[in-house]
């Protein structure tokens, strides 16, 4: 069978090219998604600062919902300091270091801040942490006492130099450099006691994290690593702490990498569905055209004794050969694509640049299995009708459509379209990013429904038009319309992918822009403050900034605001569910700078263990005013908080707002990240703020107008737009391929028309009119199918039944569709016209 399949494939190389392209592109997209998913699950960041530690003990920075993927906890969770001595006593341990990291920066009144570490929020460490560095060269001696510090050799300072350090929000203090540490981005090293005091981690201190360290690094005797790790695991069993060795140590360096990884998983998950839907659609379409082109050959084989099963096996074998050949470059492109995508994410600051992609053969293998299975299934389905055809039909030469489109097919299609319409109501009920994403899925489902019920629709539409045609109509028009009607199946095979393209671009892009518009509308109207004061280079705002800001003349209100992550556990349809969401941290006086659209309760009650929640969350999670909600804070601490306010602008400000007191001690730095400032609007007030910042190195003042106060547009928005471009390219390429193949298969028809006296000019005119019908139908169907979901989305998010988005989108889509339809029909027709007509008949 394979021999026959190969022979027949070789003869149909142009038709199979469409399948090859579809498989190649699909394989690339699936592989890329697979690489992202695998990296999300398994990627390891390099151990960096902990390269010299053989065993690292740190808290688990993940929340594990039952039966679901873990959710990342990005705030550093502490480890009890007394564990350091216990672990140090284990046999084989040569050194045990309790490592802490806290905000620290070198400042200079003239030159500002000298960067010393990638994250200034954790740049400060105790001297003993240098023992965790992998072969660091130290010049000088250990800092001792409260006024000595060791700095990264990269700063260009010399031993003995005088520097000013802002540590953990304290005012700039003079230090003497006692040593240089030659490790890139190592940070600042204080005497151990000084470090603990600065970070408020010393056992005697009163801070919320007193008596704790961030992690414990152990150095062991040569070759004793595994033994020690086992002993440490036994020692910490039951405490919930994790023990890392080897490549796993990177996990403990920065808790944020976990959330970057879960972003990758989330991304791969949301991409996966769309990619599989579109790949399946494209591959099935290409195979449909290819098998239709071989219909006569296959029917002849039936006549000379092939069973229906053998016909299907032949079609499957043939497409499998093509698919496997196309898979090889496709998978390779997929790995490259994933790399590009990671660069894009890292470039936008969504991923930490040091997080590498995991490159293993697993995604390739999964792609191979998925694509081959899909191709075989699609080929068998495409050959189904031909294979079931009575053998006599092959003998009675027939070029018309196989039969009328089956009722089941039309029915299923209509049901899908109706189902998609029902689905697009979701954004009305759930005003969230997740709710909005249903819009594009509904659009694509509707397009698939169209592909199924299209033939019946096209036929009845064609019937209606031809019946009304006046007798005097030009021959090409009449021919074109008759073709439309008679070859409804073929035509809708061309119209539906184009309509799918229109639907996909419109719903996917406009969903993103609509959500973006609604979000920024929310944050813009909700942000009363005109300015925000930050200190990213210091790792957080120094103490006293708030009161200094309030003292600036013209300032009406100033309030701190932070951002963290919480995991909200709630019941969904009786099942426990957990969702990780960004959360604002606000003080009771936030009402002066932010208007969250509070409908119930008030922000001034945000003291103690209290939260404010969005109306959306309050409704769906039973968290109305006065109710208690169970949250897991960013460092994994479980808290029980009372709802004291319910607000409207959940889209812009997130589902939950924590009180400052609730979040205290549960964030990595503990410092305020931002101060939102509302002034009287005079230029003097702005100038006053700028002058304040100029006087304090590290402080930055920015307007809130551009980058609105709440949350930035979620990175998914930008990512999704990038995905639209890639998928659209794939879709257009495969549509073009399919159209070329479909037109090329009409050679016999064109030859017969010429023999019957149709001039080449008339044939071109006829084909152009068909192209016009194709483009018009595709656009109309695409618009119609996207209209309902997009109108509902507009109503849900913007309050008017149309989406927000760039005005040029529709004309560009229309031009692209028309150009594709025209070019891919015109060129093969011209090619067919160059062949003498008698030859054309024979080739059929």
């Amino acid at each position, binding site marked *: 069978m394979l021999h026959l399949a190969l022979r027949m494939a070789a003869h149909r190389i142009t038709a199979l090219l469409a399948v090859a392209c579809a498989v190649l592109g699909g394989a690339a997209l699936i592989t890329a998604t697979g690489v992202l998913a695998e990296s999300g699950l398994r990627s390891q960041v390099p151990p960096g600062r902990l390269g010299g530690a053989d065993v690292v003990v740190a808290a688990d920075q993940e929340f594990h919902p039952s039966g679901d993927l873990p959710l990342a906890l990005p705030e550093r969770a502490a480890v009890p300091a007394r564990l350091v001595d216990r672990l140090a006593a284990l046999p084989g341990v040569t050194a045990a270091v309790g490592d802490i990291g806290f905000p620290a920066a070198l400042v200079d009144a003239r030159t500002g801040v000298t960067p010393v570490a990638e994250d200034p929020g954790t740049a400060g460490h105790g001297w003993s942490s240098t023992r965790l560095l992998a072969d660091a060269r130290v010049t000088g001696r250990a800092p001792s006492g409260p006024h000595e510090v060791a700095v990264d050799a990269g700063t260009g300072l010399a031993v003995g130099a005088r520097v000013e350090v802002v540590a953990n929000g304290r005012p700039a203090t003079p230090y003497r450099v006692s040593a240089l540490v030659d490790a890139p981005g190592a940070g600042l090293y204080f005497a151990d006691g000084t470090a603990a005091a600065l970070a408020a981690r010393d056992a005697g201190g009163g801070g919320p994290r007193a008596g704790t360290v961030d992690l414990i690094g152990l150095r062991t005797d040569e070759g004793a690593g595994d033994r020690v790790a086992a002993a440490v695991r036994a020692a910490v069993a039951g405490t919930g702490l994790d023990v890392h060795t080897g490549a796993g140590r990177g996990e403990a360096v920065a808790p944020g990498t976990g959330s970057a990884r879960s972003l990758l998983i989330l991304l791969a998950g949301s991409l996966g569905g769309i990619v599989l839907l579109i790949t399946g659609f494209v591959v099935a379409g290409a195979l449909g055209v290819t098998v239709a082109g071989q219909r006569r050959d296959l029917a002849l084989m039936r006549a*000379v004794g092939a069973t229906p099963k053998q016909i299907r096996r032949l079609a499957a074998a043939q497409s499998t050969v093509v698919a496997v050949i196309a898979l090889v470059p496709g998978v390779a492109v997929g790995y490259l694509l994933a790399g590009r995508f990671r660069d894009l994410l890292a470039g936008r600051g969504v991923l930490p640049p040091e997080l590498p992609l995991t490159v293993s053969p697993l995604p390739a293998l999964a792609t191979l299995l998925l694509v081959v299975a899909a191709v075989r299934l699609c080929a068998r389905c495409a050959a189904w009708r031909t294979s079931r055809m009575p053998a006599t039909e092959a003998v009675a030469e027939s070029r018309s459509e196989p039969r009328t489109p089956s009722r089941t097919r039309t029915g299923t299609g209509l049901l899908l379209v109706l189902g998609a319409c029902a689905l697009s109501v979701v954004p009305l009920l759930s005003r969230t990013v997740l709710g909005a994403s249903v819009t594009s899925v509904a659009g694509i489902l509707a397009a698939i429904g169209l592909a199924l019920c299209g033939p019946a629709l096209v036929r009845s539409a064609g019937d209606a038009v031809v019946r009304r045609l006046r007798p005097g109509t030009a021959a090409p028009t009449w021919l074109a319309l008759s073709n439309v009607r008679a070859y409804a199946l073929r035509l809708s095979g061309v119209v539906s992918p184009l309509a799918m393209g229109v639907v996909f671009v419109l719903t996917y892009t406009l969903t993103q822009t609509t959500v973006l518009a609604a979000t920024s509308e929310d944050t813009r109207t909700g942000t009363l403050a005109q300015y925000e004061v930050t200190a990213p280079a210091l790792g957080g705002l120094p103490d006293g900034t708030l009161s200094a800001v309030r003292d600036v003349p013209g300032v009406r209100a100033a309030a701190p605001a932070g951002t963290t992550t919480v995991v909200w556990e709630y019941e969904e349809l009786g099942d426990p569910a957990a969702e990780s969401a960004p959360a604002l941290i606000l003080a009771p006086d936030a009402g002066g700078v932010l208007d969250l659209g509070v409908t119930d309760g008030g922000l001034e009650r945000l003291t103690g263990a209290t939260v404010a929640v969005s109306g959306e969350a309050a409704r769906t999670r039973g968290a109305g005013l006065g109710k208690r909600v169970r949250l897991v804070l960013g460092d994994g601490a479980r808290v029980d908080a009372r709802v004291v306010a319910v607000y409207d602008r959940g889209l812009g400000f997130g589902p939950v707002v924590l009180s400052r007191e609730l979040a205290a001690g549960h964030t990595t730095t503990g410092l305020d990240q931002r101060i939102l400032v509302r002034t009287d609007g005079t230029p003097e007030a702005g100038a006053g703020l700028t002058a304040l910042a100029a006087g304090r190195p590290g402080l930055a003042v920015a307007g809130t107008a551009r980058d609105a106060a709440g949350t930035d547009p979620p990175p998914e928005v930008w990512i999704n737009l990038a995905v639209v471009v890639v998928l659209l390219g794939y879709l257009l390429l495969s549509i073009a391929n399919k159209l070329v193949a479909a037109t090329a298969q009409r050679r016999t028809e064109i030859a017969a028309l010429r023999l019957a006296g149709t001039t080449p000019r008339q044939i071109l005119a006829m084909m152009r009119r068909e192209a016009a019908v194709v483009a018009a139908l595709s656009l109309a169907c695409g618009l119609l199918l996207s209209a309902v979901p997009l109108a509902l989305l507009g109503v849900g998010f913007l309050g008017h039944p149309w989406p927000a988005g760039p005005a040029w989108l529709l004309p560009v889509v229309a031009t692209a569709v028309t150009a594709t339809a025209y070019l891919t029909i015109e060129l093969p027709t011209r090619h067919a016209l160059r062949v003498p007509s008698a030859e054309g008949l024979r080739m059929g």
Partner: protein
Amino acid sequence: MSTAALTAATARRAPAIALDRVARTYPGGVRALDEVSLTVEHGTFLAVMGPSGSGKSTLMHCAAGLDSPTSGRVRIDGQEISGLNETRRTELRRERVGFVFQAYNLIPSLSVEDNITLPLRLAGRRPDREWLRALTERVGLAGRLAHRPAELSGGQQQRAALVRALAARPAVVFADEPTGALDLRSAHQVLDLLRALVDDLGQTVVMVTHDPAAAARAHRALVMADGRVVEALERPTAPHLAERLVALGER
């Protein structure tokens, strides 16, 4: 093999084709076959004639197992096929039945040799190389096996189709207007070959044609009209058949 021995051999076997009151009604109520009964013995050459729409093609499709009759029984080489499903019928067909069509129906993407061995391959059988060589030599295609069908003349294509039909040593060969698309000389060659197959190799041949000259080469001719057999002629002659056809056409 002598004629006596042949007769003795066929006497023990069931007839090559046996139709018992076979009817075929198409959707829409067109009755293409009206309870036709017919027996074709092994080693005989039968011609089926009739004007267009007389049901001769339907008769052949039903007798060959390409189509299922609406009622009645069809046996090929003693094997009942009326109740079989499409797959079983196909399998039976490729073992016991060979076809020659007016349009040759060679698969354009396969070489002549691949076309000839196709039914055997589909049946999962090894081609009998000796037999195929003898056949291709006999029909004069020995040097053209590697060619594509499009590179052969019509007569050559039809002879290739004949070899394909015989490759599996079928119980009966059905020929549907085998000379309809050929020039006079090629048509003669093909008819000579068919007759020789019957006379020399004891092959059974059923040929549907509207050409009285072609039908005159058969042992027996049936004349059909309106789905029924209106006349059966032993040792038919072309003038007589032509006369009958003209008469039927004028009704």
